[in-house]
């Protein structure tokens, strides 16, 4: 028995294990893992949050895209879904929560208010969360339907899939450290 195992040199083209080995780039593997398990930080600030809840429930089922683990702790989240009107009073709190999320992190601006202030051309409302945070995906609608949120999530997955996970982040790390 012992002798038998030592005679087999583990290699991809061994006919016994060939079907279970895939060659790929490390970037692709990391991206594949990241995009299929995006844990959202639900930043529900207005009516968009209701649609976000609907997207998480059985009918629309955001779990089909691996983003069902809504974390109410920023330290365990990957993507912040800013769902609703960001008032100036709330804006810096949103920023503080974003700052507490570990890298890599993404932001979805859900709905007209989070994207641009929406119908609130007002003294009290921040005219788009992109004044404070780097937004990856904007979703139109007032509020957007759950399908729109799911499509936004798929767009984000597409974006993550085409990131160069290692080199880009190493570059950012170097910029931060310098």
């Amino acid at each position, binding site marked *: 028995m012992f002798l038998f195992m030592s005679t087999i040199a583990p290699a991809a083209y061994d006919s016994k294990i060939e079907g279970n080995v895939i060659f790929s780039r490390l970037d692709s593997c990391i991206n594949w893992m990241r995009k299929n398990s995006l844990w959202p930080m639900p930043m529900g600030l207005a009516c968009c949050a209701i649609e976000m809840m609907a997207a998480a429930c059985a009918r629309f089922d955001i779990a089909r895209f691996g983003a069902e683990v809504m974390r109410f702790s920023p330290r365990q989240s990957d993507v912040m879904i800013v769902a609703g009107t960001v008032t100036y*009073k709330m804006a810096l709190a949103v920023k503080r929560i974003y700052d507490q999320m570990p890298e890599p992190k993404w932001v979805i601006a859900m709905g007209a208010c989070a994207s641009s202030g929406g119908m609130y051309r*007002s003294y*009290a409302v921040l*005219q788009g969360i992109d004044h404070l945070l780097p937004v990856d995906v904007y979703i139109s609608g007032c509020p957007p339907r759950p399908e729109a949120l799911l499509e936004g999530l798929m767009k984000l997955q597409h974006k993550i899939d085409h990131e160069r996970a290692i080199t880009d982040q190493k570059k950012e790390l170097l910029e931060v450290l310098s």
Partner: protein
Amino acid sequence: MSLAEAVSKLQEKFQVIQKIDFRGESTLELPSTQIEAACRFAKEELGFDFLVDISGVDNFGDEPRFEIVYELYTLKSNFHLRLKTRASEDHLEVPSVVHLWATANWHEREVYDMMGIRFSNHPDLRRILMWEGYPYYPLRKDFPLEGKPSDMPEVAFSQPAPLEGGPFVTIASPGHIEDREPRARHVADD
């Protein structure tokens, strides 16, 4: 008791500046020195046990400039009564009625936050919607809709909103429908 009885009792006891009857609603205007006593009388003697709302009105250009409106209701006899008082910009303070109706607490804080009217003897007169330290009173008529820049480091900041020629408002008019269409309106032009 009916609304007319309640109004006449208030008129006997207090110095009513103005009495307005409109579609079955009565509004009494009282001097600010008497408003607290009138509220106490309305609650304890006339049975107005429910304070529906307190609101502030900015009659920009008039003197005295501000109005404070108390909307009262009696759950025993089921009718409304509106009390009003005025406050000038020089002495922008009216007595609080929190000790009569606990709900007045947040209503008065809102009036203070939006209009800058102070309520004496209020137990906790802080801003309620804007952040503590915001330098303006945004519902005053001379405050622009798009807002003004402000900054409190680590707390909050604000910037004017882009209005693109607006605000677009409907101006009530008995004329043709064209006259009532939403259009840009600037306070400075009026």
